[in-house]
């Protein structure tokens, strides 16, 4: 493409440094936000005002900030759950179902300890909470294992399987908490019984301890992929299952393993939202909303290119956008689903920008050499 004496060309990239990837991702997000402002404009709202409100509520408001942080924890866990199979070249879009399974398992433990009784019993959090965590991880892991096993042994398409499992688990939760199901709230409101206050997750400065879980996991994952043998095997399989097999890597075990791990992490996300966030402490009636939120994890995982550290700022940003978006939706009288729309726009922009990870724009002036715009 020529403009005067300048020429714009597309060239294939030979390498992609971390910085370049970060810049492209940032540009993608900004572009998406610009695109999204059309939604505001269509609703007769000044996008600048809307964004200002969004960000200030999410990050500066004493009521909004804790919400943002809670959502950040949730998203970070979901992203990690997505990233593990992603590095193995597999798609885990079953985080929704896995987190439901995790939540159900955690509440099952609670039920076993008599959590449903009224008046709520005094339970010992030191034994209970770790058990709930383990149960949540196991629940998610079992669900993940199903997809991983089918993939590893029979090469069944994991996208369809995980999506089916999402739907199946969705209805299982409905069964459990509605209409006389075992988890149903004695008040019968179509939600689960409430967490006894003795089982509330401990808070540090009003933030559930799960933040340490999420951040710790990020570091663990980073270390796993960078330094360990299993991380190497996963990466090799992700790039080329045929070559991995040649090198002696067990190509049945890898899909199974990554989905078990991913499922476990997603299960913890389920524990987090339904048992650790102040103000919730039950499997809410609109649990489907949180399930849908898990898809933000996919976008996060893609933008950070599978790097768990890079996921932290992205998850924080998306958490804020989602909370702020909800707030703005209410305050400025917009229709329901603003954060859903944002999710959609972000994703499609990201897909388009994937192109720039492989190609770069080269600007050259006739006779004067080249300047690169990455």
């Amino acid at each position, binding site marked *: 493409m020529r403009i005067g004496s300048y020429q714009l060309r597309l060239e294939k990239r*030979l*390498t992609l440094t971390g910085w370049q990837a970060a810049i492209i991702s940032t540009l993608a997000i900004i572009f998406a936000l610009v695109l999204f402002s059309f939604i505001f404009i269509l609703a007769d709202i000044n996008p600048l005002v809307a964004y200002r409100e969004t960000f200030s509520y999410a990050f500066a408001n004493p009521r909004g900030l804790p919400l943002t942080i809670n959502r950040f924890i949730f998203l970070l866990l979901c992203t990690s759950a997505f990233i593990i199979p992603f590095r193995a070249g597999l798609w885990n879009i079953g985080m929704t179902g896995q987190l439901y399974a995790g939540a159900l398992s955690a509440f099952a433990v609670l039920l076993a300890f008599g959590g449903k009784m009224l008046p709520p019993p005094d339970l010992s959090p030191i034994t209970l909470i770790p058990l709930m965590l383990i149960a949540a991880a196991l629940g998610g892991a079992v669900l993940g294992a199903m997809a991983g096993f089918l993939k590893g042994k029979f090469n069944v398409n994991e996208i369809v399987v995980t999506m089916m499992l999402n739907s199946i688990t969705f209805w299982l939760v409905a069964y459990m908490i509605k209409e006389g199901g075992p988890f149903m709230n004695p008040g019968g409101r179509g939600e689960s019984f409430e967490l006894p206050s003795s089982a509330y997750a401990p808070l540090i400065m009003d933030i559930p301890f799960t933040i340490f879980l999420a951040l710790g996991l990020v570091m663990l994952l980073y270390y796993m992929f960078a*330094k*360990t*043998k*299993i*991380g*190497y*095997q996963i*990466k*090799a399989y992700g*790039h*080329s299952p*045929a*070559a*991995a*097999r*040649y*090198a*002696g*890597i*067990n190509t049945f075990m890898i899909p199974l393993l990554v989905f078990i791990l991913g499922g476990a992490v997603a299960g913890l996300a389920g524990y987090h939202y339904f048992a650790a966030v102040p103000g919730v402490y039950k499997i809410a009636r609109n649990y489907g909303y949180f399930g849908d939120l898990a898809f933000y994890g996919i976008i996060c995982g893609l933008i950070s290119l599978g790097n768990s550290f890079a996921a932290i700022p992205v998850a924080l940003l998306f958490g804020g956008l989602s909370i702020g978006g909800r707030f703005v939706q209410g305050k400025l009288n917009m229709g329901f689903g603003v954060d859903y729309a944002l999710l959609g726009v972000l994703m499609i922009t990201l897909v388009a920008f994937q192109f720039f990870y492989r190609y770069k724009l080269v600007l050259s002036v006739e006779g004067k050499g080249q300047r690169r715009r990455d």
Partner: protein
Amino acid sequence: MRARLPKEGASACIVNARKRDMEKGLLEGIKHGETVLEARGITKRFPGVVANDHIDFELRAGEIHAVLGENGAGKTTLMNILFGLWQPDEGEIYIGGKRVAFRSPLDAIDLGIGMVHQTRKLVSAHTAIENIILGHPKAGRILNLKRAEEEVKELCERYGFKIDLRAKVWQLSEGEKQAVEILKALYRGARILILDEPTSVLTPPETKKLLASIEAMARDKLAIIPFITHKLPIVLAISDRVTVLRHGKVAACLETGCVTEKSLAEKMVGREVIFRIERTKVEKGKPILQVENLSARNDKGFLALNGVSFSICEGEIFGIAGISGNGQHELAEVLAGLRKAEGGRVIFDGKDITHSSILERWQMGIGYIPCERVEVGSIGDFSLVENTAMNFYFDDHFCRRGIMDYRKIRGLTEEIVSEYGVVAPSPDTKARNLSGGNLQRLILARVLSRKPRLLIANLPTQGLDVGATEFVQNKLVEEKKAKAAILLISEDLEEILSLSDWVAPIYEGEFMDIVPGEKAKRETVGAMMAGLRPTPTEYPIPNTQYLDT
């Protein structure tokens, strides 16, 4: 509400785009011996090299005019230019006396030039007739396979091709596939045929049939240009004239009646040529690999390997000569653990390893160099260090308690990179940026650094230039001297004959014989590769060299 049908004119548009009847008459009415194609002063430059340097070439109707040259002599470039894939920097092309310029291969096809590539350009899943009429302007909106079949059958009879047109391409033999491609070009009206290495994957009987068909076509006033690398006897047998290319220039253009193999070879290389490498003598040790009655299926489910038995001693090179598709690939994979054996046993160093895992085999001292360098032997997105790790991640020295010691692996990588001459900017370069030769050096380096006691080398020099080929062959001999047992699979008969202590021609999954290296003769081995059984008096009873009774 009517369902939406595919757009009405869509298929017609796609098909009509290439009706250029106006120009088709260029080669009509040409007489035997008249010039049909002439290229003058063809020059093509690439960064750093002049691939074609003012090449003149003339082709007559009814002539078979071979183009001969080594890899890198400029054959491929000239071929692509004549076929319209590339544009020459300088020079003109004339067809039937009229100057033409090709914008794309489609122009060439319209003008009557057909090309048959070295690697098959057919859709395996479709039938032969479907491949032949694909994209043909006469195909019509609704496929009239019957009429096309009749027309193609007529072509088959005229030129002596015997193919079941309704068979799916993947079921056909190499020779039949090639016939389909030739028919495809002929059906499009080609009067000039360019053949790229036409005999390289054919058995001798198939080659005979092809040559007969080519002669029939020549008698029918078609003109044929076979491009050949080194099958000099074919050139002598079939062509009327031969043009020899060397370093991008025409070294000679001679009547075939006036040349010999030796004089041609000298023209190709420019100097005296020695045809064979010396075989090294090494004292051999005990038998380390014993294969008993091994069978295996290929990816399509057919029995590709049908009960082979043999053994290899330490310090021996066992060469398997065969045309690709006769089971040697499956044999290599079974021995490496990548394919399940259908029957039979594999015994390594006294232990039955028929069911051992791939990892166990590496750890036991078996090394495999796969023929698919890029898809299997290496990981393109991994750095050289990470690629090296493929064969060492399970070694205690490099990986302790689940933690990889990348520093040590890096050190090893640097060592082997310099020892094996891998050219790369740094050990962190991604493998996909390496050239074919360098990638093979890396793989070789990595596998040989494990000092395997059994080395399985599957097509180790395929696609490599002369320098890299020599390097690989020398490394194999070095390993042999270090008392490794080597199984060598190669399509280059010269290579097998010069390196191997035992030569086993394989045909349809069976060893035709196992011949001691010194006694192996090119003609007999070649015949066995094609399925002709040896007369029993010639060699000792096969398949029982070292097996315990």
